[in-house]
């Protein structure tokens, strides 16, 4: 699977209240949640994001709550994947469980600029910056977690394999 989109840059420690503020958690409807995605970090995000675009952030992306509403809002916005220096652990596992591809890369996180056009090879973890020509390799993931992404998330994985 090859993903392609514009980079939307964010800083360190983007928490789940910034990704989807708790004041909107009285619903889990993706079409409502996407309207407020990243609202407290960038109020213009939901109006500017287009299908396929990619979030590129610093360290500890998704820290805070366990709310799956965060990756749901990101996915419903049309974001194809998230690249960060590191992810907070619950956001990290939620993304795999939901089949939202995420990648950890020190270099990609720091060198990619707002608006750069990126191409990502999901299976290989290769991130290409089509503007600068730079290529980055994301950190490897355990085989089980690669399986989750390939299967399309935890539920699809269980349906396919009959167990976790």
């Amino acid at each position, binding site marked *: 699977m090859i993903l392609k989109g514009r980079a939307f840059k964010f800083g360190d*420690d983007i*928490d789940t*209240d*910034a990704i989807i*503020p*708790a*004041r909107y*958690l*009285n*619903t*889990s409807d993706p079409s409502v949640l996407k309207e407020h995605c990243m*609202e*407290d*970090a960038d109020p213009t995000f939901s109006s500017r994001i287009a299908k396929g675009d990619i979030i590129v952030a610093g*360290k*500890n992306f998704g*820290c*805070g*709550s*366990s*709310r*799956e*509403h965060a*990756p*749901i809002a990101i996915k419903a916005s049309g974001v194809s994947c998230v690249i960060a220096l*590191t992810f*907070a*652990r*619950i956001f*990290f*596992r*939620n993304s795999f*469980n*939901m089949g939202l591809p995420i990648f950890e890369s020190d270099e990609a996180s720091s060198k990619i600029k707002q608006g750069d056009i990126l191409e990502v090879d999901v299976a290989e973890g290769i991130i290409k910056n089509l503007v600068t020509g730079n290529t980055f390799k994301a950190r490897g993931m*355990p*085989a*089980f*977690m690669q399986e989750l992404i390939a299967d399309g*998330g*935890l*539920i699809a994985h*269980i*349906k396919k394999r009959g*167990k*976790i």
Partner: protein
Amino acid sequence: MTIAEKILKSHTSDKGFKQGDVIRVDIDIALANDITAPIAIDAFKSCSKKDVFDKDKVVLVLDHFTPNKDIASATQCKIVRDFAKEYHITNFFDGGEVGIEHALLPEEGLALPGDLIIGADSHTCTYGGLGAFATGVGSTDLGVAMSTGQAWLKVPESMKFIFRGELNRWVGGKDLILYLIGNIGVDGALYKVLEIEGPAISSLDLSNRLTMTNMAIEAGAKAGIIAPDVVTDAYTKTRAKRNYTMHKSDPDALYSMVKEYNCANIEPQVAYPHLPENTRGISEVGEIILDQVVIGSCTNGRIEDLRVAAGIMKGNKVAGGLRCIIIPATPKVLKAAEAGGLIKIFLDAGAIISPPTCGPCLGGHMGVLAEGERALATTNRNFTGRMGHPKSEVYLTGPAIAAASAVTGKISSPKEVAV
């Protein structure tokens, strides 16, 4: 082996695992609340199993937006209520039985030493204060766990923090954990287990221990664990309805880092907006005028916390123009506060008493902030917009500073008001 590794080993058939391996574990408790359960129920139904894996091991607590704040949140609760009825969930807490989940489960003897607990709530790590391996997960994990009784976990490394020395006056578990987070940062324990021990920890009651492990997630940790001891056993044995195991780490257990703190150097802590790592000692805090003080939450809403607050507020009045909201974490805490005369002290001081709810901690209801307002709270997060408007501010402290600040109207040491 570390205590975390021992608990994982006793809950998996993937023997011989090493750090970094993904293992499948059998869980003792699967917990969700009114925000996370509806999505988990969808996930459960997608697994197309006829029944939950064990109706006694699924715990559902309607604590976040209850008593319901609007039609949408009432609809979410109804989904959970209908599910609990249809599947005969034993441990379903609704109406007057609702307490804040992480205060409620230890109190009810549902979370026990040696357990492996997953919860669709990040503060599930609280139960590590009992000597359990407890970790927050998402709703999909929880839905799958309700169906299969299992979860996947990546075996974490452990870090050890040893607290030595005597606690200073007005210092409690909240101050120790804020100090630790201030020291290592909000991702200082990312993906790892944060094991806490030492003479100062042994002298803490269970309430203060639970406060510490509650905030392990604020350092990025997968779990926070305090080895169970006589204090844990005394608390647990009267509450537990099943057997439990008290593990401890071996002397030769491997840690990615070991760090020691001297409590003599730790004064009451204040975490400034907008991250729990922005900590300072109370003596370094200038004049910060407050609009609201919240005393409650899964971090500091137990009876021990309310006793500290009431001791300072007794005979004093809440400062003019400040709203002070007291939220006993569970119905039993509220009853004990009533019986002990604490509720009268709070009401005489001019404080507001809220029913048990997460409420304002996450900007849900019962004390949401307007633009430009500033609150001090005994809660666990002070992210941008956490308690309301994105341009409001939250400072975090323990109950002693919170009570003193409610009286003076600005962030204050209890020394300024206590007799």
